[in-house]
């Protein structure tokens, strides 16, 4: 992967306000203070210490501590001191930082307790193990994030052909729940205006509605959801219709596609691969 990496220029000149900015590779990787023009306040980016685990890792690295043998008392003190500094800077401390502080203090006190003299060999578990595991796990994902960043950078240097007129007709855009809700709301609104007199009629059950949807899709191959929803005779039936669409999508029986944003949604049977 690395051999095909292009040379990517660092966005040094991007921000005139920070002329001496180092070539930061990832946004928010280093601590920074920048004015927020909208609110007229200074905005502090904590950089790497975006969360408590980041801060802990930083402290461990800074002191070149072996992560498998953390001097808990020392690290806890440093951690708490750092929190104090953040408080003085008037940063609203995220609850997550405080939770970790409490965990550290608890760990510190557990380290002070004498070990169970009756426990033998493997039974003696290092109380720090859980924290170390979490830190290592967290660091793995930080490394994975870096990997994703470099992949994205390479991909940004790759261009595909310009857009064709026909691209908008490509239905291969997955439909999200919100697209579906938008269509549903439109129809619900229209329905409200139309239904003036409601006649007692037999209520359609969910199972019947699912069957109806299945049949309609099977006979036509594909189905415009607007058509399907509009067949509903009452508000209640409309809701049942909507739920049955969700149900079939959940069971992966049908797939929904939407050619354009806010456009019509088409349902198709999913052919088992």
């Amino acid at each position, binding site marked *: 992967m690395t051999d095909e990496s292009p040379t990517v220029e660092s966005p040094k000149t991007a921000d005139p306000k920070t002329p001496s900015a180092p070539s930061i590779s990832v946004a928010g990787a280093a601590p920074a203070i920048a004015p927020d023009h909208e609110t007229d306040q200074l905005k502090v980016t904590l950089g790497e210490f*975006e*969360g408590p685990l980041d801060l802990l890792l930083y402290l461990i690295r800074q002191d070149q501590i072996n992560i498998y043998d953390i001097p808990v008392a020392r690290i806890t003190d440093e951690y708490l001191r750092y929190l104090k500094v953040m408080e003085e800077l008037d940063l609203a401390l995220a609850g997550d930082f405080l939770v970790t502080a409490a965990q550290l203090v608890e760990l510190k006190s557990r380290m002070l307790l004498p070990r169970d003299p009756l426990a033998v060999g493997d039974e003696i578990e290092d109380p720090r193990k859980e924290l170390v595991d979490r830190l290592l796990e967290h660091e793995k994902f930080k490394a994975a994030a870096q990997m994703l960043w470099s992949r994205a950078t390479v*991909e940004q240097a790759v261009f*595909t052909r310009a857009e064709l007129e026909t691209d908008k007709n490509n239905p291969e855009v997955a439909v999200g729940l919100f697209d579906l809700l938008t269509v549903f709301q439109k129809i619900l609104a229209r329905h409200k205006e139309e239904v003036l007199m409601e006649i007692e009629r037999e209520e359609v059950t969910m199972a019947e509605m699912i069957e109806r949807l299945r049949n309609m899709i099977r006979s036509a191959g594909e189905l415009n959801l607007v058509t399907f929803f509009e067949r509903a005779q009452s508000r209640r039936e409309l809701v049942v219709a909507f739920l049955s669409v969700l149900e079939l999508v959940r069971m992966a029986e049908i797939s929904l596609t939407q050619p354009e944003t806010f456009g019509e949604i088409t349902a198709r049977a999913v052919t088992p691969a």
Partner: protein
Amino acid sequence: MAEHSQTAAELEPEAIEAVEADDEVEGTREISATELKGITESLIFVADEPIDSKSIAKVLRVDQSAVDEAIQSLVEDYSERSGGLQLREIAAGWQISTRPEHHEHVRAYLKSKPSAKLSLASLETLAVIAYKQPVTVPEILEIRGVQSPSAIKTLLDKRLIVAKGRKETVGRPMMYGTSKEFLIQFGLKDLSELPSIEDFQDLAGGSAE
């Protein structure tokens, strides 16, 4: 077609021929290997998303294996020629794109700037989702040690992640996974192309000592 309802015996000889010719169109059509290669390349070129050999085979009504062969031959051509374009497998399909080493000039012509990068928080959240999917918000919090509501919103807005139903546990939290768009934007064939998360172990543990 009316003829199909009749038995073969009732049909005139010409009609039988007609039916046979008809069948041939519906079945596999004869396309020479060279022609198929050319058509395949054209389709990959016009497709606005990576296109798979199955879709190509369906349009051309030929065997998928024939298309696969054509693609392999194209891949060889592209790498031998080492021109300005590359043919790559991405998101379970094939795509023709420029080579990354020419990005500076392409960008100068298009007058385009690299689009905004994801923040570190978003990238970390994305990494957790990519490796742990389907994963819930509390599980992401456990690994990152920090809440990530805005990161998740950003990723959803960019369609890099999608909701994958709810987990049957307390509170039925929403589960998230990566999308096809994720594969495209990060140039991945499929999820298995991501390096194993355990490969990052050495990186993480090693630098600690």
